[in-house]
């Protein structure tokens, strides 16, 4: 027990770093979207998480020893993570041009932002754990660590389309060269071969927004491209280079804000497609809330 008291800084730093690394591991999951990529992408993310955990844990003893200038290394860390975010964005943008259905700039920006944000959450976890371990006792540090892990877990998942809209399967109609999903016009398809392929393999869905805010969020082009990309990832895409007309598209009905989604999946399963669309994440940068604007509905402005 004496050992724990005399070495409380070391214990505090160790517990803080361990919980920081655990937080990063919980927030890191490679799902069907294969991001971060395996194995080197995961290695990079975990390594940066370890560095962030170490920094967060170390900050507490330096503050307690009144070495306040030592905390400037936290600003250095912030600079590093911002640079890494830029690098991440650049990498993803470069390979985006090689995708049959690209992610789009908004999705990529969201991914890069999440990457940076998670590292800051790791610093927060390590800092709080280290603080409680050193100032109180090691078991309070563990409690604080678990609480911080729960906070990180809360921020890990965002909302999906199911929270803001309803999705229904819709009828595809090809009238000569004009392609419709229900009553929403999608595109003009010139070649007969392409028209036949669309009739055979095409799938249409209608996304109906639940309220005014959802309507504006769904209209965002970045959000729509993310929907198309995610659905193409799960269902496969019946397309190749040299087939420019077989592109997935989304079009709005300008009168009521409904979004028509048209795609050509490799697996033509309408109910599965509906489930996939409901689970597409809402991009942070696409969210808008016009209902919260402080403008008077009537009277002079």
């Amino acid at each position, binding site marked *: 027990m004496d050992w724990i008291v005399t070495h409380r800084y070391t214990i505090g730093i160790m517990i803080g770093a361990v919980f920081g690394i655990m937080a990063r591991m919980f927030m890191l999951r490679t799902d069907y979207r294969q991001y971060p990529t395996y194995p080197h992408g995961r290695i990079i993310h975990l390594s940066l998480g370890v560095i962030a955990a170490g920094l967060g844990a170390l900050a507490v003893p330096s503050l307690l020893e009144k070495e306040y200038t030592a905390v400037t290394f936290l600003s250095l860390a912030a600079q590093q993570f911002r640079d890494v975010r830029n690098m991440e964005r650049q990498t993803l943008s470069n390979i985006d041009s090689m995708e049959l259905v690209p992610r789009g700039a908004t999705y990529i920006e969201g991914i890069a932002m999440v990457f940076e944000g998670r590292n800051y959450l790791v610093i927060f976890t390590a800092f709080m754990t280290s603080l409680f371990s050193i100032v109180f006792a090691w078991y309070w540090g563990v409690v604080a660590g678990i609480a911080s892990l729960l906070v990180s877990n809360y921020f890990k998942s965002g909302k999906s389309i199911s929270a803001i809209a309803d999705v229904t399967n819709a009828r595809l109609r090809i009238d000569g*060269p004009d392609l419709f999903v229900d009553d929403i016009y999608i595109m*003009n*398809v*010139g*070649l*007969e071969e392409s028209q036949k392929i669309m009739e055979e393999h095409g799938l249409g869905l209608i996304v109906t927004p639940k309220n005014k805010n959802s309507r504006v969020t769904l209209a965002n082009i970045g959000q729509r491209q993310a929907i198309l990309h995610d659905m193409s990832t799960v269902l496969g895409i019946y397309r190749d*280079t040299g087939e*420019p*007309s077989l*592109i997935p598209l989304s079009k709005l009905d300008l009168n009521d804000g409904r979004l028509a989604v048209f795609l050509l999946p490799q697996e033509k399963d309408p109910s599965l497609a509906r489930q996939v669309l409901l689970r597409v994440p809402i991009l942070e940068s696409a969210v808008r809330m016009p209902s919260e604007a402080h403008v008077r509905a009537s009277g002079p402005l």
Partner: protein
Amino acid sequence: MSRIVAVVTTDRDKVAGGGAPIFIASSEEEKKKVAFLLEKIMDAAVHDLHNGQYILVDRSD
């Protein structure tokens, strides 16, 4: 903004020149065949203007 890459038509009088090459086909069959080949070669989508003309459009951003 997209660009017209080529025009395929059977009627010479319906199109005036303007930068994109005009392919004049002698029949509907030939028009469709030429449009098909051009789409695959140029990687540009074919659109039907409802008046007997096809245009190929380049949408690479």
